[in-house]
């Protein structure tokens, strides 16, 4: 069975279901018997949800004028293939 430290190292893999199938039963058994790790995982789950709802989670709103401005720039650069932008 994994240790408490192992539980914390792989919490996201467990919650995101990225954990290999053969590791899941041991992980799950540990959570069944360890109240501290159950709390740890619950708090990780809450953290993930909270990140998703925090003000930082919303992509910036792009105004119509800004869209138009970018489109005009792109039209210009499409017309002038000689004017190469900096390499990325």
């Amino acid at each position, binding site marked *: 069975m994994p240790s408490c430290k192992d539980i914390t*190292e792989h919490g996201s893999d467990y919650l995101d279901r990225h954990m290999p199938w053969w590791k899941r039963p041991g992980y799950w058994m540990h959570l069944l018997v360890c109240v501290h790790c159950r709390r740890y995982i619950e708090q*990780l789950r809450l953290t993930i949800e909270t990140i998703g709802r925090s003000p930082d989670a919303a992509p910036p709103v792009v105004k119509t004028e800004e869209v138009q401005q970018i489109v005009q720039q*792109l039209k210009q*650069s*499409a017309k002038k293939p000689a004017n190469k932008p900096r390499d990325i």
Partner: protein
Amino acid sequence: MANPPLPSDDELIPRLLASDENAYTQVVAAYHGLMVHLARAIVGDAIADEVAQEAWVAVLRALPKFERRSSLKTWILRIVSNTAKSRLRHESRTVNLGDALEETPIVDPSRFKANAHWANPPAMWHADTPDALLASTELRRCIHEALDALPPLQRAAVTLRDMQGLNMEDICKVLEVSESNGRVLLHRARSRIQQAIEELEEK
């Protein structure tokens, strides 16, 4: 602001290649916000808009060579990520992009006993829902500061996964990291935010 639904990649790509202005407008309206969001995660607020605009030019330039091994959206975000990373490299010589391979443990080792079981286990939090947590101005600020303090690729991973909702496979394509490194980046980022909330909640 609700945009009309975006046509499929099959429909959009030929129109973009033909410099169709409507198609330009549709993709810019659909993706520019996400691009600036990702660019902010990697290079910070100050030059994120500039990076996103630079990425658009690169997108149109590279489009004829796009091999369709991912969606248009994933491919565009990958160009944003590359543009942002190269800006970071230009601007400072000592950037630690993601510290994916950094050996520091997820939880402070002093909180475990010698047998790797809890010595100092997590305490109850005052709040048990995201809304209850986010009701506190102090907590919102603390999450913002913890995000700000993350290494760029960790911040990018958490932005793409927990804020924009991309799947892990696409995130790894966007950031050009292996699946296992992508998962490490994400878990480190989340753990640091969890730690920041914990410090506040346990006061």
